[in-house]
């Protein structure tokens, strides 16, 4: 169908994936393949107690070296002469066998151009380019990892979360005339409810989210590595982001960004597609039954560049630059090719192809696969390179998405499958945009004058330095749960400033710190944005809050355009893509649940964590791959035999669990103490007693959200410079 070689190549990957079957293509053979078809129908038992000891040691020493394991093993064997413990490598093999998780190894170009798979399988030999490929990469098939999640009643019970939650949501809908109580996990979204009512997802099926991210292995070195992971949405959000429940897909070594990323995604997607076609045989220990489960790819997310590798959309410079391929057409400066998602038509503007009138902000919404397919067909039919390039600009698509290879009834559709990451973009990228505005860092067109940029308050050095001091002064008042409290930004202008620092600085501090500094209407517009974003960043959003956020953002955007860009052609570049993406947030919440819930924000940490586990800087990529595989094997083992995963310090000593997630923590008075003064009066009043009983003071309280509140009782015992005022709390109104 496709005429150009580049498009033909993409299509051949897609077609090979679409026609995948477990017995051809992927290189799972022998026992692992047999297990896919016939999962073991009994809980996993480790028979020999020394094997169990060795495995426990191996897991506990996950972050230590091989020699540590050997030393401990020797000490144990000296102390207990009867004990015969397997060696490090034997234990490693036992782990691999028990977990049933292995990797598929494929050759790749040493420069990470492409992997020699699928249509490229014979590439190196036939072209004679690489005689002996020196690089390989590992893909960890998802099916065995998923099967392990059902092989212990405790783990299997967790997998039933989706079913229970779905039931609960349908009850809410009935009770509230079609509205959910809260928008939080993806099950609240219309997209999920639709596939359920259309019977595309059944009770036993598994809902997946794919997330891909590039990561720098060392900050100083230019070593890029791409990792993709699977999030099992059947688990409750409480679990599915945790490292031990994240399933690793593949580790794509650098040193550079892969040129043909489709070829690296190929083995994993081919495997998924095969399982989608044949169904995954699962034995559920909790119900003692066997069933066929279908794997539904519900969301795919990545940061900007990563998302484009999955979607093959044109990205921000295109006329249809939106990640969601929404129908909005942007405007561009007559002299420049790049488009910007401006809603208001510039004054005196008649650039051909984008001289459309103002766009109503309420018209911004998701696109759908019908539109996508039509556009894609147009693109594929391009007879020449020149026509193709024009079509790219027109359609917003550069090529077919590799995800088209998956079984169409088991994927949400393109572009519907892309949603997330907007939280990150609108959070972090908007923070950067505000700063650029306040600093007046935009290119000033010859027809414009910075003297008119009333909002560029930080161009004045004194104001900027004073602001820096004010930010630094806030540090002492920010509790530890704010992650990294912002440093004085005026001292760190060019250095690395963490994203969380930006977010605290811009969204938590600036509304107050810029009051009276930013001219009033700019300050008001900024506050309006923050008000909307803060709602959208919540984990659970009520329908009423969502409506308010939607309205705030819809008012904010055109106002933002009017006061900054002012419909001036020379200021079109002020309106970055993140401005537009912010407008999608509210409608995305109704579609796929609270944006933060499916955001890559939290997943990035997992991916980052894996990068930190490297211990052999000489061969970082293969070491990372080995760590990754081991990580998956340990997780599978833990899922099948949870006693390898004992809960960690649930409640420390000298604590009191009050239930509902509240725990009092040390320090605590050893003896009952007499209370004096106003305290005594208040306690006596509260209890309705004539005199105050003796009490024990507690210093700390852990809240259900994980934050730890201190109290004056504790902080008065510290030196003033150590105090970070973590004793202010928000208290729920409780009426009699």
């Amino acid at each position, binding site marked *: 169908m496709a005429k150009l070689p580049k498009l033909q190549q993409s299509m051949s990957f897609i077609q090979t994936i679409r026609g995948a079957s477990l017995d051809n293509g992927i290189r799972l053979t022998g026992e692992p393949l047999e297990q896919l078809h016939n999962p073991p129908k009994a809980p996993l038992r480790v028979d020999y107690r020394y094997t169990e000891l060795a495995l426990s040691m191996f897991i506990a020493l996950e972050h230590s070296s091989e020699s540590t394991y050997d030393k401990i093993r020797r000490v144990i064997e000296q102390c207990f002469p009867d004990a015969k413990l397997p060696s490090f490598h034997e234990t490693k093999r036992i782990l691999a066998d028990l977990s049933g998780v292995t990797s598929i190894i494929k050759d790749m170009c040493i420069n990470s151009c492409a992997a020699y798979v699928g249509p490229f399988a014979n590439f190196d030999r036939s072209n004679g380019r690489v005689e002996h490929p020196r690089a390989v990469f590992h893909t960890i098939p998802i099916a065995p990892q998923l099967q392990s999640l059902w092989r212990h009643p405790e783990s299997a019970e967790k997998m039933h979360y989706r079913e229970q939650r779905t039931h609960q949501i349908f009850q809410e809908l009935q009770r509230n005339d079609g509205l959910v109580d809260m928008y939080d996990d993806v099950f609240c979204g219309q997209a999920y409810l639709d596939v359920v009512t259309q019977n595309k997802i059944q009770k036993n099926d598994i809902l997946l989210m794919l997330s891909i991210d590039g990561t720098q292995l060392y900050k100083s070195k230019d070593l890029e590595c791409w990792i993709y992971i699977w999030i099992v949405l059947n688990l409750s959000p409480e679990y599915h*982001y945790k490292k031990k429940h994240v399933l690793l897909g593949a580790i794509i070594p650098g040193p550079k960004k892969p040129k043909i990323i489709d070829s690296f995604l190929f083995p994993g997607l081919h495997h998924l597609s095969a399982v989608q076609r044949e169904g995954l045989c699962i034995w559920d220990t909790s119900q003692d039954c066997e069933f066929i489960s279908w794997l539904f790819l519900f969301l795919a997310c990545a940061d900007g560049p990563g998302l484009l590798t999955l979607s093959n959309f044109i990205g921000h410079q295109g006329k249809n630059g939106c990640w969601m391929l929404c129908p909005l057409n942007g405007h561009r400066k007559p002299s420049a090719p790049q488009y910007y998602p401006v809603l208001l038509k510039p004054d005196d503007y008649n650039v051909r192809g984008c001289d459309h009138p103002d766009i109503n902000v309420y018209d911004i919404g998701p696109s759908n696969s019908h539109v996508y397919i039509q556009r894609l067909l147009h693109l594929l039919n391009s007879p020449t390179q020149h026509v193709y390039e024009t079509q790219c600009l027109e359609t917003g698509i550069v090529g077919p998405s590799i995800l088209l290879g998956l079984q169409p009834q088991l994927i949400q559709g393109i572009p519907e499958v892309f949603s997330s990451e907007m939280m990150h973009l609108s959070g972090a990228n908007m923070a950067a945009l505000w700063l650029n505005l306040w600093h007046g860092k935009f290119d000033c067109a010859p027809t414009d004058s910075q003297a008119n940029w009333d909002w560029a308050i930080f161009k004045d050095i004194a104001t900027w330095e004073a602001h820096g001091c004010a930010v630094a002064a806030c540090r002492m008042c920010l509790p530890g*749960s704010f992650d990294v409290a912002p440093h004085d930004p005026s001292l760190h202008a060019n250095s690395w400033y963490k994203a969380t620092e930006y977010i605290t600085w811009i969204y938590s501090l600036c509304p107050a710190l810029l009051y009276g500094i930013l001219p009033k209407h700019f300050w008001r517009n900024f*506050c309006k944005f923050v008000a909307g974003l803060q709602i959208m960043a919540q984990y659970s959003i009520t329908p009423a809050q969502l409506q308010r956020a939607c309205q705030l953002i819809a008012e904010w955007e055109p106002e933002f355009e009017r006061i900054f860009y002012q419909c001036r052609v020379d200021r079109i570049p002020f309106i970055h893509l993140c401005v537009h993406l912010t407008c999608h947030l509210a409608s995305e919440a109704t579609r796929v649940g609270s944006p933060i819930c499916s955001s890559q924000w939290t997943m990035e940490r997992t991916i980052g964590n894996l990068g*930190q586990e490297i211990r052999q800087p000489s061969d970082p990529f293969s070491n990372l791959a080995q760590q990754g595989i081991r990580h998956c094997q340990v997780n599978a083992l833990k899922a099948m035999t949870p006693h390898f995963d004992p809960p*960690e310090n649930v409640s420390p000593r000298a604590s009191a669990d009050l239930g509902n997630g509240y725990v009092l923590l040390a320090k605590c008075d050893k003896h009952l103490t007499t209370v004096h003064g106003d305290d005594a009066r208040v306690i006596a009043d509260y209890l309705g007693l004539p005199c105050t*009983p003796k009490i024990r003071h507690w210093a700390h309280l852990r809240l259900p959200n994980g934050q730890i509140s201190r109290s004056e009782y504790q902080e008065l015992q510290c030196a003033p410079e150590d105090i970070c005022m973590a004793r202010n*709390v928000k*208290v729920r109104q409780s009426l009699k």
Partner: protein
Amino acid sequence: MILTLICDTIQISFNGGDRIAEVRYFTRLAREVDDWHDANEEWNAQDCLQFVDVALVMLYSNPHPYLLERSYGILASCTKLGEESLQMVRITDIRSLVAMIPHRPVIHGVAEDRYFLAEKTGMDIMCFGSENEED
């Protein structure tokens, strides 16, 4: 420490919505079990006592209405109400930890020493991250 409790709940919000408070300390007040039960209280059968878990707090004022309104509800600027406002709140009514940061806004031409509220954006996600895990 054999106690009886009469006043069970107290009103801590006057104009609706949440209140901000500074914690002096937390404590568990014991009360004798009598003939009525409250399912929410922890049951300590051994001593025939129930605990009422409370925090002794001082309140901040309600946010300044002008700043709150002009900022679409995100600039909550309060003053400390001091000893006068000393009171008990139930621990289970504590929702989150917040920061109260001193500032000196000029409101209607007059500068005032106040505290503004800073909350962690997307804070609820805290308990879902991997930061509390083994590594």
